[in-house]
């Protein structure tokens, strides 16, 4: 199969890139995404604040609508296995394996979360440690609880939003821990998520060690200034310690002129709107060619 423009990822950036490229005149566009629905990670972001005050799924629906009147092709539940220097991608789905050759490609694959193993946290590896995004998926898509007594490491937007979500599900959020001197997400989120629900922020500290066999029993928290350490009992630790642009698929390619990165795989954006705007402008530019 051939296409002018292959877009990998149907999140905010990928969908916006497709619409932009279509508007600019490109008539042969294919989007591939591993999920079953359009919108990428927006699906699990059920809080408001997207594109004004929409929820993530609402914003995903809005972006999907703008695609409706275009002739952009979609391949959902499709994994892109590889992309080669000769402009050929291999796509896998239950329908089969196929090669797609393309003229231009936009990678809009979002980001991944920094896992526990990448953090300087020692000790046991008990159950009850999740990334913030995993916790969001559990609560918002699977109706599961990550735990009862929850500590959150990292006070970026994701950490604070997940803290509120745990609180609203009736869980005890012991604190949000932050290495920096204060929260690192947006002030709006601090007020809405933390202050409103009286969730404590503990700045200037970090988790150094996990304890527990089977299930997490508690963590050692170190004050970075004084170096003093304290054991905090908890059954759940959520890691909101950073997002890494997901560029694995193209890491071997260098910087060929046909490859364009849009959204969080390019750099981590604070707002989905900003990722969408970047996608759209790249789409508009490429679509003209």
């Amino acid at each position, binding site marked *: 199969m051939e296409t002018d423009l292959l877009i990998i990822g149907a999140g905010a950036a990928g969908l916006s890139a497709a619409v932009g490229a279509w508007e600019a005149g490109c008539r042969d566009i294919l989007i591939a995404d*591993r999920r079953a629905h359009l919108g990428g990670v927006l699906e699990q972001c059920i809080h408001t604040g997207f594109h004004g005050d929409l929820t993530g799924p609402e914003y995903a629906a809005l972006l999907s609508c703008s695609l409706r009147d275009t002739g952009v092709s979609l391949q959902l*539940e499709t*994994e892109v*296995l590889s992309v080669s220097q000769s402009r050929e991608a*291999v796509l*896998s*789905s*239950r*329908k*089969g*394996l196929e*090669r797609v050759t393309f003229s231009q490609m936009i990678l809009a694959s979002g980001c*991944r*979360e920094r*896992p*526990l*193993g*990448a953090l*300087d946290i*020692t*000790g*046991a*590896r008990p159950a009850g440690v*999740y*990334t913030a*995004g*995993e916790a969001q*998926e*559990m609560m918002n898509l*699977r109706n*599961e609880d990550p735990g009862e007594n929850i500590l959150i490491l990292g006070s970026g937007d994701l950490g604070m939003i997940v803290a509120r979500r745990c609180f609203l599900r009736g869980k005890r959020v012991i604190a949000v821990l932050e290495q920096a001197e204060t929260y690192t997400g947006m002030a709006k989120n601090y007020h809405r998520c933390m202050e409103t629900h009286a969730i404590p922020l503990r700045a200037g500290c970090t988790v*150094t*060690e*996990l304890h527990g*066999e089977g299930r997490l029993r508690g963590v050692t928290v170190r004050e970075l200034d004084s170096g003093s350490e304290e054991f905090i009992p908890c059954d759940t630790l959520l890691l909101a310690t950073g997002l890494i642009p997901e560029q*694995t698929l193209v*890491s071997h390619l260098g910087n060929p002129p046909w490859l364009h990165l849009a959204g969080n795989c390019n750099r981590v954006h604070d707002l989905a709107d900003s990722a969408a705007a970047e996608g759209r402008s790249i789409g508009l530019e490429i679509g003209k060619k």
Partner: protein
Amino acid sequence: MKRYDAIVIGGGLLGCFTARNLRRWDLSTAVLEAREDVCTGISRANTAVVYPGYDHKPGTLKAALTVSANRDFDVLCRELDVPFSRCGSLMAACGPKGEAVLRRKFRNGQENGVPDLQLLGRDELLALEPELTPDVTLGLYAPTAGTVNPWALGIAAMENAAQNGAALDRNAPVTSITEDSGGYIVETENETFSCRAIVNCAGLRSVAVQELCYPSPVQLRITAGDYLVLDSLTSHSPKHIVQFEPEQGKGLTAVPTVEGNLLLGPSERPGVDFGTTRDGLDFVRSLTRQVLPQVDLNDTIRTFAALRPNPERPDGSSIRSFVIDRPAERFWSFLGVKTPGMTCADALGLHVARELAGALQVNKNPAFQPVRNGIVQARNLDFEARRRLIAETPEHGEVVCCCEDVTLAEIHAAIKAGATTVDGVKRRVGATMGRCQGSRCRLKIEALLREEAGHGN
């Protein structure tokens, strides 16, 4: 009460390979594993090296077994369908003490019959492995050294044993052993077995298990070691196994694993559980910076600790050889087998199985089938083969673990093969081992495990 000719206590590498080899004879065999899965104790974590055989004194069982096991490792891994990388090892020294160690190992290796060993000067060494620090002065090159995934190997051996009729009981910690009319009664928490002979492969608990029935000639001192695992995309990973022999203190091993990651470690310290320590990890990091200065430790995706049993005589002196005790005519104990236990696991299993078959005077099992077929993994196939696989089994088209390219069909196969936890799935098909460490697929795998468990009920 279930009756077997032989009961193997412990389903680590040694237990799995002992069971496999017992089935070469006409011996009904069961493995009793205390935990939820095989290879979850000592075997769940080690340096993953298949040693060439120059580390041990000429004339010892360890030296002879290691050299012959290394020679046979390609055949073993082909039989068991386990990936094996014979990448070769480079032992490097930066000063006179290290050089003396290398020269001694070189002489040992030559006497032991290790093929193609070479001492390399600085320039030759750096030409072969440019990632090494330019401070190196001498290298010992062993092209026959290799690496294998310890769980993959142990699980394959157990599956092969099972396909040849061996039974496996999990969650079955042995609580008592008593002599009974020439054989034994073995009790676990839930069941009682009778058998004609016992092979104790209980690893960390091997002395405790022997002491359920007999005194032990040795005690185990348990030590721990910390390791780092780096992303498969990390640059400046060495192409060979690198073993650094420092001027003082403990060295470092760096292994380019069969999965494509870089494994660094271990530290050595007291410890009785699998928790990592800061000092241990810092030790590994600091030696890595010294030996492989270009390696970017920010690419670390996982840290873990391993446990090692160190057999000691009652006076506290350490024992270097494999301890295979036979406190009674029909009772064998592997007491504190450590490095190179993985390299020699099949050979050690065969050694004891042969003695046991002799003691019970049984015949060879003519139906023994040494070949085991592992789970087909789409990622190992070329385009056409993978396309055909998906056409036959559409669930191979759906990738669940995107970092390691593991499909839904493979997860199902892992569960069918006995995985009851995400870790069990990881050990069978590699899901969650990649750079996101399962943050994008663990929940899905947990749901699949629950679904399968539901079907079973």
